[in-house]
C-alpha cells in the first residue's frame, strides 16, 4: 500500500509516521505537522476540540491523496488526523510524502494540507477562557 490514511482518538506518533514513509526508493520526504498554538488572533487558547465525520473524512482524504499521485511523481502518502480534545502543543495532523526528488514531495505535501482544510469533513472548536467558537462557521 502506498497510502496510510487514519483518524485517531489517541495522540499521533511522529516517529511511527516517519518509519512508515521511509523507503530505500525515496530521496526526499516532506512532513507537515500541525500543532495546537497557544494564541489565536490575540486570545489565549485553552484547548481545541476536533470532530470528524469519520467515514466520509477518510474518503475525502483518499481523494486528495489520489489527486496528489495524479499530479506529482510521489511514492507514498501518509495522512493522520486526530480527533477529540487537544491541549496546546499537541498534534492535530501529520502529513508525510515521499518522492524520488524533493520538489514533488514539498508540492504534494502542501497541496494535501491546503486541500484537506477545504474539503475534509473535520471541524475544530476553539475553547477560550471566556467561551468557545466553531472555526470558520460564520462569515
Amino acid at each position, binding site marked *: 500500500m502506498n497510502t496510510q490514511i487514519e483518524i485517531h482518538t489517541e495522540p499521533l506518533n511522529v516517529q511511527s509516521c516517519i518509519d512508515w514513509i521511509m523507503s530505500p526508493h525515496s530521496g526526499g520526504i516532506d512532513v507537515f505537522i*500541525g500543532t495546537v498554538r497557544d494564541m489565536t488572533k490575540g486570545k489565549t487558547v485553552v484547548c481545541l476540540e*476536533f*470532530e*470528524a*465525520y469519520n*467515514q*466520509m*473524512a477518510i*474518503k475525502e482524504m483518499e481523494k486528495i491523496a489520489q489527486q496528489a499521485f495524479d499530479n506529482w511523481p510521489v511514492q507514498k502518502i501518509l495522512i493522520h*488526523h486526530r480527533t477529540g480534545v487537544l491541549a496546546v502543543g499537541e498534534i*492535530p*495532523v501529520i502529513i508525510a510524502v515521499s518522492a524520488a526528488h524533493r520538489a514533488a514531495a514539498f508540492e504534494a505535501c502542501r497541496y494535501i*494540507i491546503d486541500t*484537506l*482544510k*477545504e*474539503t*475534509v*469533513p*473535520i*471541524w*475544530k*472548536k476553539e475553547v477560550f477562557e471566556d467561551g468557545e467558537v*466553531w*472555526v*470558520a*462557521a*460564520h*462569515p
Partner: protein
Amino acid sequence: MMNIKILAFGIAKDIFGGSTISIELDENATTKQLKTQLETAYPRLKQLASYMVAVNNEYADDAGLITEHDEIAVIPPVSGG
C-alpha cells in the same frame, strides 16, 4: 412522505440541538428541497458562512435526489488540519 434521519456535525449539532434529527420529506425530494426545509425549521443555518449536504459520504448537488435509505449529513464549513 419519507422519514429521514440527518447527521449533524460541528456547529450544526448546536443548531439542531443534537447529533441527529429526523424530518419528514417528500418522496424523491432534492437536496435543495431538504435544505429549504431545514432552513425553515432551523433558521440559524442561514447564518453560516456556507454549508453542504452529504449523501452517502459524498458532497451532494442541489439537484440530487434523496431516497429513504441514504445516509444524509449536514456539513458546516470544515476546519480540520
